[in-house]
């Protein structure tokens, strides 16, 4: 119950801050229902996030640990910048390059979609299922 409330709170806050976001729902790189059922590509993105243990640096809810809060960064990064950061890393800041990971190179779009959905407040943190 608590979770639902806090997610709703974030979603509300985002909607209030940027009403344009909600209106342009069709442009979203992800499809989501009830916050935890997502399209196949986004689901694979979440699985990639989990398998690469990104939460060790960016936090389980993408709110930042030693790494920056992605719920914030994803509002600024273009898709191309996101991809470059994933593949080449930011070695000087401690972000590893993931161009050697098959899972990452094959699921970059899904990872982008998942994190964008988290940043938008549309996708919940934690376990996801496929939207059929």
């Amino acid at each position, binding site marked *: 119950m*608590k*979770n639902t409330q*806090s997610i709703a709170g974030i979603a509300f806050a985002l909607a209030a801050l940027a009403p344009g976001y909600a209106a342009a729902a069709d442009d979203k790189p992800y499809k989501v229902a009830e916050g935890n059922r997502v399209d196949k590509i986004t689901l694979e993105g979440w*699985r990639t996030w*989990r*398998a*690469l*243990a990104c*939460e*060790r*640096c960016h*936090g*389980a*809810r993408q*709110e*930042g*640990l*030693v*790494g920056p809060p992605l719920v914030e960064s994803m509002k600024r990064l273009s898709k191309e910048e996101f991809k470059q950061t994933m593949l080449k*890393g930011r*070695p*000087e*800041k*401690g*972000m*590893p390059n*993931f161009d*050697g*990971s*098959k*899972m990452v190179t094959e699921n970059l779009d899904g990872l982008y979609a998942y994190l964008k959905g988290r940043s938008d407040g549309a996708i919940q943190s934690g*376990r996801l299922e496929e939207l059929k």
Partner: protein
Amino acid sequence: MASIRTYTWGVLFGLAALPGLAFANPEVIKLTQDPKNWAMQAGNMQNQRYSALKQINKDNVKNLRVAWTMSTGVLRGHEGGPLVIGDMLYVHSPFPNKVFAVSLSDQQIKWKYEPKQDPTVIPVMCCDTVNRGLAYADGKIFLQQADTNLVALDAKTGKEIWKIKNGDPKKGETNTNAPHVFKDKVITGISGGEFGVRGFVAAYDIKTGKLVWKGYSTGPDAEMLMDPDKTMTWTDGKMAPVGRDSSLKTWQGDQWKIGGGTTWGWYSYDPKLNLMYYGSGNPSTWNPAQRPGDNKWSMTIWARDVDTGQTKWVYQMTPHDEWDFDGVNEMILADGINVKGKPRNVLVHFDRNGFGYTLDRVTGQLLVAEKFDPKVNWASHVDMKTGRPQVVKQYSTQAQGQDVNSKGICPAALGSKDQQPAAYNPANKMFYVPTNHVCMDYEPFKVEYTAGQPYVGATLSMFPAPNSHGGMGNFIMWDAGTGKIVKSKPEKFSVWSGALVTAGGVACYGTLEGYVKCVDANDISKELYKFKTPSGIIGNLNTWEYKGKQYIGVLSGIGGWAGIGLAAGLEKDTDGLGAVGGYKELKNYTELGGVLTVFALP
């Protein structure tokens, strides 16, 4: 006949070699025998964290005052503690691993060493960029850097004497452990169990840094320095040879090559037996379904000959780990412990899995294995004949399966105790153990291995042990002969600081809120002294004497696994995964920053 002859030759050879061996490094032993020094991280070779000093005692400890303090200038978790040799104190910091040599007469920094390390090593380090401290021998200070460089510095000037590379961070290999000097060798291990690193210990010549031997935790017998006929293990109620390919037989395919068993704990040494003791860590990945078998010799207590590295005996505590119950915690050596009416020379170990083990350290026989936290539920008990824990199906993440969240497992992955070392008091033969009182939900999932990238394969959520005192830690007094908790003192957070016990009848430890606490060594429920240091304590307490005055010192600086949320500036986690969830309240008590605080009587 043959065996008698071999024995005789062995003795003769041993005697002939003795002068050389005995004088190989009398210096460190001598230094540790003088309680004015604190010349090893644990105070002595036996890992006891005991001091014979008694100026500070249970009657006057309440009068302790801060004598001096010093900042390391580094944020993040400060584990380990300073060394004191004569009139000098040597202290380290987490990454970038600074070393300070401080004169005790005026607290002046005589020299400072700061290595240049590639920052890309930071994300490859599990659970914060901690370092557990320095070692001393032969006029040298040994630093085991995060990037795996092992450096010998001139203790007088701080100049590099030699430097070698112990591992490869590109493969996920890093170091957090303190180096240990036994005889003429500096012995180190490796971290990276969450990156599929294959664990080993390596011995380097203290004069030159030349590799003398290297023994892996897994793989072919020769690479583990194991003799199938002579290396013994507890089998059906007695010691028996491990047999051929004892590790290879317990892994599927080549998984052992990325199978963990890392070695980042505190090692001990018995000079009479010439054996060193340490534990190997969790098998990789954390998803048990991906590595069928017992995964030997991860999660194992090892006894190795210090000169050759040959394995005398092994005992695997947690075959086929399903919970990340990393077996690296310290091995404490104690003599004359009464086990079932007989005095035994033993090794005592408090494992992450929640069992306190007492073994005969000469033979490796299992004597005692009992829970040191009553909440431990993943196993009902250890079968004393087979030596195997009896796993409870409800808490078996293997039985529950991949992508299933197994709930309410006690202890959590960080164990009933993590690396924070316990202390042993020879006066009453009791152990003082800083513990965690934390449980978890654990959901394993399939992962692929890529060199240098995380290879974890489980999502965790941790919380205080339910239906208990609500806190996440206890400081306990343990009888290793009977395997019983004598007394337990509840703490709000995990006690993540190494304990100290002294001939003055006091036991001291630090808390995550930042308190140094000293209690009556015979009744730990009596808190005699408490002082709030500048940050949470995950360092270890120690003591020394200078110009007739006894001092107690401790590094504070929150971080490490328990404090990683805080170390990283997390602000609004709600029910975050891993260690963060249960420890989020820490921010109400403490902030980051490494400081050494030194206490004395007025």
